[in-house]
């Protein structure tokens, strides 16, 4: 590239760089700086305190609980949402009457606004009026209503269910699209070779879409780790922090208790986790691209 061309290149890239810088890096760096200052409602002039907020948070047992909750939440929501999504995709990929209608109906939970879905599920989990309790009682599995969202032992499981219900259509649609690119000749070759449906699934179909599976796992992991609306509306992160994960804890500390410095510390930790996930994401992406070139 000549000197002149290099200048032109910078001019063309500049608007995008400015946007990304202003909208992403400025707040991110701002968060890191914020975490080094003590700011609160009664003390609105930021005061430098170094890593004091970090020490405070790391010593607080709630931090451990938030990390653990985030892990449980992310692992179960991602796993269930992907497995369920894949099963539904396999089902929708079959030739059957009413296929088009089924495909649109499956999308419904995903297109509902998160807050609406959360309120819907709060009703379902209601101890007196909820569908969940009346269903379980009529099946004879429990004999009196449980306050699913108010018990520390059931709250996390309950919101995981709601999030899986809300999120699985996304995975189903992604997997359905991938399944339709699987080479039918390979599937037929496996049929001729004597492989039954299960064998074909594991030997031909799943290997054929494994790059999509890897990328969808990572994408849903990032999205799930950042989840906020459903949890906030259903439990506020409670009871007793039983469902507090990073985003709800940041919101609670920052805008509930106006402890901006400590909220920023949580923010910095979640940036680190996400940065790691994104690095894995691009690693998988470029590996897939290399493989694509080889064949």
């Amino acid at each position, binding site marked *: 590239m000549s000197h002149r061309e290099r200048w032109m290149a910078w001019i063309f890239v500049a608007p995008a760089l400015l946007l990304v810088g202003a909208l992403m890096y400025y707040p991110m760096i701002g968060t890191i700086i914020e975490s080094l200052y003590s700011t609160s409602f009664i003390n609105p002039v930021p005061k430098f305190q170094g890593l004091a907020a970090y020490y405070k948070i790391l010593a607080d047992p709630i931090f451990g609980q938030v990390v653990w909750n985030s892990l449980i939440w992310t692992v179960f929501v991602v796993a269930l949402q992907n497995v369920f999504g894949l099963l539904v995709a396999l089902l929708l990929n079959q030739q059957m009457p009413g296929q088009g209608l089924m495909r649109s109906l499956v999308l419904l939970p995903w297109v509902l606004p998160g807050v609406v879905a959360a309120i819907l599920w709060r009703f379902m989990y209601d101890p007196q009026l909820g569908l969940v309790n009346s269903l379980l009682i009529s099946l004879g599995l429990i004999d009196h209503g449980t306050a699913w969202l108010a018990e520390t032992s059931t709250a996390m499981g309950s919101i995981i269910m709601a999030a899986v219900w809300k999120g699985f259509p996304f995975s189903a649609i992604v997997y359905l699209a991938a399944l339709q690119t699987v*080479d039918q*000749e*390979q599937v*037929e*070759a*496996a*049929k*001729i*070779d*004597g*492989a*039954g449906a299960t*064998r074909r699934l594991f*030997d*031909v179909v799943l*290997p*054929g879409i*494994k790059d999509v599976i890897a990328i969808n796992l990572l994408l849903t992991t990032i999205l799930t780790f950042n989840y906020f609306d459903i949890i906030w509306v259903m439990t506020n992160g409670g009871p007793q922090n039983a469902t507090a994960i990073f985003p709800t804890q940041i919101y609670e500390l920052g805008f509930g208790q106006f402890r901006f410095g400590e909220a920023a510390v949580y923010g910095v930790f979640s940036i680190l986790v996400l940065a790691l996930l994104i690095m894995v994401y691009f690693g998988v992406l470029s590996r897939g691209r290399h*493989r694509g070139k*080889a*064949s």
Partner: protein
Amino acid sequence: MILASVTLSSVSKFWGSFVAVEKISLAMADGEFIVLLGPSGCGKSTTMRMIAGLDDPSAGEIRIDDRVVNDLPPGKRDLAMVFQNYGLYPHMTVADNIGYPLKVAGVNREERERQVRAAAERVELGGLLERKPGQLSGGQRQRVALGRAIVRTPKLFLMDEPLSNLDAKLRVYMRAELKHLQRDLGTTTIYVTHDQVEAMTLADRVAVMANGKLQQVGTPLDIYNTPANVFVAGFLGNPPMNLLPIAIADGRVQDSELTLAAPAGVNGAITVGQRPEDMRLSETDAGNMAGEVYTTELLGDSTLVTVKVGKNLVAVKTDKNTKVHMGENVGIRFDPKHLHFFDTTSGTRVAFDASR
């Protein structure tokens, strides 16, 4: 040797109201190499897919040996198939690809490795067993597909246009290899192609199909020398047979451009046919017809002269040293021993007494 005969009895396939295959009956003998030949959309691939079990026939019966296989899944029919794009498993090595049918059948690892090696030797892939299909050339992928087909010594081979993705030179080479391999193994083989040269060179018998119907079944020479109808006559041969519509009445050809002794007992709207290599150029007044040279093409071993006779173009294959020029007037002489007559309305061959 384990061989299979295949019998189709009035087999049909409909897709809604579309008739893909209509009442095909065909018996294939043990060890025979039979080619299903026809233009695209003629139903030849569908016929093969029904034999394979990948599509279900809408009507009729398919037997392998004496067993009706209509309801048997493909894996239970003891057949192997080579696909047009080879259908290799891209994430498996060559060895795993070839060994897959054995793995599914539950053959133990040691035995599997031995058989895979033997099959790979046979298709000359010995050194490539650890490669993935993506690292192989088209010809090598083709060999992997063949290796996978022969590894479990099936009773029946099905091949769906297996050579159509290879370049011209490799195709000729693999064609010879395939023929040799099939003779060597003696396995009954059904081969689908739209390429008449493949059909002529490979087949013991050719089944010509068009519009979902069987047009003619016979040895390559039969089909070439005595085509059963206008379609077969016009489909085989390069260039195909010249076909000229004429009318015969009272034992005389009622056509001004053509002087020809009408065969006994042939009357009405007739299409007369003769292959380009059976025709000769002559002086304008010494032939059966005359016209203006439309174009000449040197093919190397011969020259193809196309002559415009009335509204029709007639191709004549002549000696490579023939010197005629475009626009020149020439005569064309038929070889009376190699004339074909077809009923113009039905298209079918008209029998006649050739001894006259």
